[in-house]
């Protein structure tokens, strides 16, 4: 058999993952609904005072997106563990880390990207000032893949556990903290007219560049540990 190229396996894997999502498109909409509902809870709890809502809007949007990402982490490997495809990925002639990177990117594009795209609508719910919208969008666009990559490492550690939902959240949240600080912090800084918002976005970008390389390797190591 000729050598399998990395690109063809990546294409095949991405097609399979997208197909699986498409066949269950109802499920795929759930993170979106969840985020919209969490955001809608805040005006209910806090009162519809526009100034107050506008002040906490960046934090609420970021926390809502982060929680939605947390809830989708379990689906990253769950079905593959149950039907044994993950073991086939371990045995594949291309590095496991590469397959995981493709998996995480597809997962991000199907669960987190829709959230980034509807965030202008959610921002409008919370009266976020329009001029902050670009900062929010950039921070989410840089931050959500970072959350997915970090989450992939933690989720990989728990693949051997049957009901891992709550544990996964407890493990992932401390690691998500810097992303939240820089992500929500950049919008908050821009809202206060501080110039440090650009620095926070650059740090998020730097973190994303690092995580794109290191997180798949760490996730692959974690899966080998969990399935050994």
């Amino acid at each position, binding site marked *: 058999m000729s050598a399998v190229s990395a690109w063809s396996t990546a294409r095949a894997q991405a097609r399979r993952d997208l197909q699986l999502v498409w066949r269950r498109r109802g499920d795929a909409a759930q993170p979106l609904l969840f985020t919209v509902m969490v955001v809608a809870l805040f005006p209910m709890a806090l009162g519809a005072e526009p100034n107050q809502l506008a002040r906490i809007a960046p934090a609420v949007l970021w926390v809502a997106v982060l929680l939605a990402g947390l809830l989708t982490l379990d689906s990253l490997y769950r079905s593959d563990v149950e039907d044994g495809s993950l073991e086939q990925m371990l045995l594949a002639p291309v590095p496991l880390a590469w397959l995981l990177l493709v998996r995480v990117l597809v997962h991000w594009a199907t669960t987190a990207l829709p959230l980034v795209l509807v965030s202008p609508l959610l921002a409008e719910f919370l009266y976020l000032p329009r001029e902050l919208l670009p900062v929010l969008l950039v921070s989410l666009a840089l931050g959500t893949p970072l959350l997915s990559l970090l989450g992939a*490492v*933690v989720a990989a*550690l*728990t693949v*051997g*556990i049957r009901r*891992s939902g709550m*544990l996964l959240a*407890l*493990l992932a*949240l*401390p*690691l998500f*903290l*810097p992303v939240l*600080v*820089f992500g929500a*912090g950049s919008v*908050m*800084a821009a809202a206060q007219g*501080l110039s*440090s918002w650009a620095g*926070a976005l650059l740090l998020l970008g730097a*973190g994303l560049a690092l995580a794109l390389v290191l997180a798949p390797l*760490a996730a692959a*190591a*974690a899966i080998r*540990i*969990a399935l*050994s």
Partner: protein
Amino acid sequence: MNRLLLWFHQLGSPPVFDRFAARWTPWGFGLGLVGMAIGLYGALFVVPADYQQGDSFRILYIHVPAAWMSLMVYALMAVYAAIALIWHIKLCEVLAMACAPIGAWFTAVTLATGSIWGRPMWGTWWDWDPRLTSELVLLFLYLGVIGLNAAIEDRRAAARAAGFLAIVGVVLLPIIRYSVEWWNSLHQGATIRMFGEDAMDPSMKWPLWVMIIATKAWFVGSLLQRARADNLAREAGKDWARAAAGVEK
């Protein structure tokens, strides 16, 4: 092979470690208890009251050693975990997992004493100061390691997975620390800086050093005790383990 290296390799064997731990655990606890008694006596009765903080600064003689231990134990846990993952030494898995609860308790003590100290000094039980916040995150990381270790059935796989999490935590701890500091400067928290260690009068220092050494001795005793118990539980089927635990054949 030289003798030190030989001894080191032999220590990796469960029965040899069991004898070693049984021998040195009382020394660790004993030295720790005596040291803590001397240190606390010095801290409570010998050292004069601080001219600014009065008597309430005396809690720092517990707080500072505990804070030191909370970080040191985490680093040690990650080192054991790395050794366990790289060289597949079973004993290091045991030791890494034995570190986690001890470190978590030291972290909890640090947070509790810091909070009690903060009440008269800052006028509040809790302040979102970078030190406090990162100590809290450290506690969460410890609890995550303990939780993951408890959640996986197979003992070896559990220790290796939790150890890996500890290593990931070590990589992210400086980033978390830095991010918390950045976040704090953004929120402009009005905090009073804790006085630096160098500002301490030399006459106040000796109980602190005694306490620092005593907590380390206590940690060694506790680590050996916990690791020995776990080690025996894992080897429960073997004759030497039954004999060491005093179980009839």
